[in-house]
């Protein structure tokens, strides 16, 4: 059974097997260059994470919790989030109201256009 290995999109093509081969070649080249370096780079002090010369906090203390991870993004989009998140009230009547609102809007559009 003959399978085509290239996905045709009508304006381009994508061949994942060729991509994987290219990736493997690039990976091999990087590995080769890395192995030409010093042999003692995986021992001792080089293993510890560098936090500007400070000690690593014990028991996951330096692990940034998930809520703080994208603070910049949520802060920049604050105006958008402050309008959007309160809409998700958790009240079932509001959910039904949204459904009926969209139905009413679509009825108006469909019957007049």
């Amino acid at each position, binding site marked *: 059974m003959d*399978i*085509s*290995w*290239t*996905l*045709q*999109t*009508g*304006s*381009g093509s*994508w061949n*994942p*097997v060729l*991509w*994987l081969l290219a990736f493997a070649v690039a990976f091999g080249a990087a590995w080769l260059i890395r192995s030409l370096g010093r042999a003692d780079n995986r021992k001792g002090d080089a293993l510890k994470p560098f936090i500007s010369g400070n000690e*690593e906090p014990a*028991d*996951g203390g330096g*692990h*940034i*919790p*998930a*809520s703080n*991870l*994208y603070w910049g*993004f*949520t802060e920049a*989009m604050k105006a*958008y*989030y402050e309008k*959007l*998140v309160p809409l*998700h009230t*958790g009240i*079932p009547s*509001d*959910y*039904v109201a*949204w*459904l009926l*609102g*969209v*139905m009413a809007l*679509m*009825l108006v*559009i*469909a*019957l007049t*256009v």
Partner: protein
Amino acid sequence: MMDTLTRHLPALLVAIPLLAAFTMPLVGRAGNAARSAWVVLGALLTSLVGLALACRVFTGGTVLYVFGAAAPHVPLPMDSGGIPIRIIFQIDALGALMVVIASLASLAIAIYSVSAEARQSGKDGFYSMLFLLVAGILGMVSTGDLFNFFVFLEISSLAGAGLVAYRIDKGEAVEAGLKYALLSTVGALSVLMAIGILFAQYNALNIATLASRLQFTRLDMVALVLLAVPLAMKCGAVPMHFWTPDSYTTAPSSITALLVVSSQASLYGLFRILFTLYGDLLQFSWSTFGWFLIVLGVLSSFIGVTMAIPQKDVKRLMAYHAVSQTGYMLLGVGVGLAVLGNAEALAAYGKTAMAGGLFHIINHAMYKGLLFLTAGAIFYRTGTRNLNKLGGLGHTMPWTMVFFMIGALAIAGIPPFNGFASKLLIYESVFRFSPFLSIIAMVVSILTLASFVKVFHSMFMGAPRAEFAQAREVPRPMIAGMALLALVVVVTGLVPQAFVDRMISPAVEALVDRAGYISAILGGN
């Protein structure tokens, strides 16, 4: 014997899960091992029947099954005067695609559940409702009768709501189950009203017969809106998506993966109504309904992903991503619907857009199911879903981490996984329709990657935490369930054109070919 079996495959498709559901309490009396074996056997048989049926459809064309007739493949009985009078299952290429998705997903989920629910009580009811949900999904995508579709829609909604609320979880799960049931019932009532309107006018419930008799009066337009909007709500399109995060979060993880497939069965229903029931009758309002799908799609993808980024609960985050990915499917098929009347645009990029949207359905079911199963595995070992409390699990749960990475890279659209293939189809064809929409889709993809990097960092990276020291790898059935879905993700990514040629392009042709659907029943009219 094999001949009889092959002839009755569509009936077995729904009969086997129903039988498994109703005999579950009996088998459960024989002990846990017997019940687990029965669950796996039922899911295996259902998947085999589904895959065999799909093979039959992809090689031989539309399969018809008339319930209660002497010859199941003859839709027009000799004494009926040319009217199909019984309930007919009509499985064309699009239906076969959905049957494949449902079969693979339910097999992986059944194998996973056997181990994930092993320590819980009330397993009889749980597995009964799981098989009822599977039967409902398979019925929804196989039926050629509108009222039958409504009945299967209600079966899957009720079973789904019961399963969401099953582990009461201090009342949160029941709250989510109530919201799901409430919205589903309101939607289903609207669908029933539309079916009543259509039946009163044309005296037919069979989709092909209705399609051949439809004259598109104002009442039919009302019926279309009453059918399309609740089905769009059931698949989680913004702005009717509010129930999706609530129910996906509190349901047991294997059920969440199955609820994703159930949403996609409703998406199938939406496409069936728009393309096959109404189809080229929407001549002057193609653009309207195409743009309805496109606007819903763009809103869903953008709002879904931006609501996902600040979430603290991992399953709630993934649920918002489910909303977002549904947006891609709606966008792709919406572009196809918007250019349905323009034959050259349809051939140039419309069919590719629809192929992208439909390919995304199967890809999404696989990688989203995989992601929810990994979230369930984490919950199974650590007892928490809060991302702020998790950390450092990559050291002790390497298999879960690998499967999560495969799922996360697939959903973000990173080569060489399957998400990239379907997203590429959607980007390139939507770009030729309207570049602005394509750019929004790409931005959404970047934000998807961002939020999954956040989840990966919070769950698996970092030093191992003291409170999760005993979190070993999950039991082997759970790994087997996740591995099955991961395998499909990887294989579909490596040979996307094979899937598009064999499964997706026939499905697109079946969706666009309204006359073919009608003539399969009414014979050349």
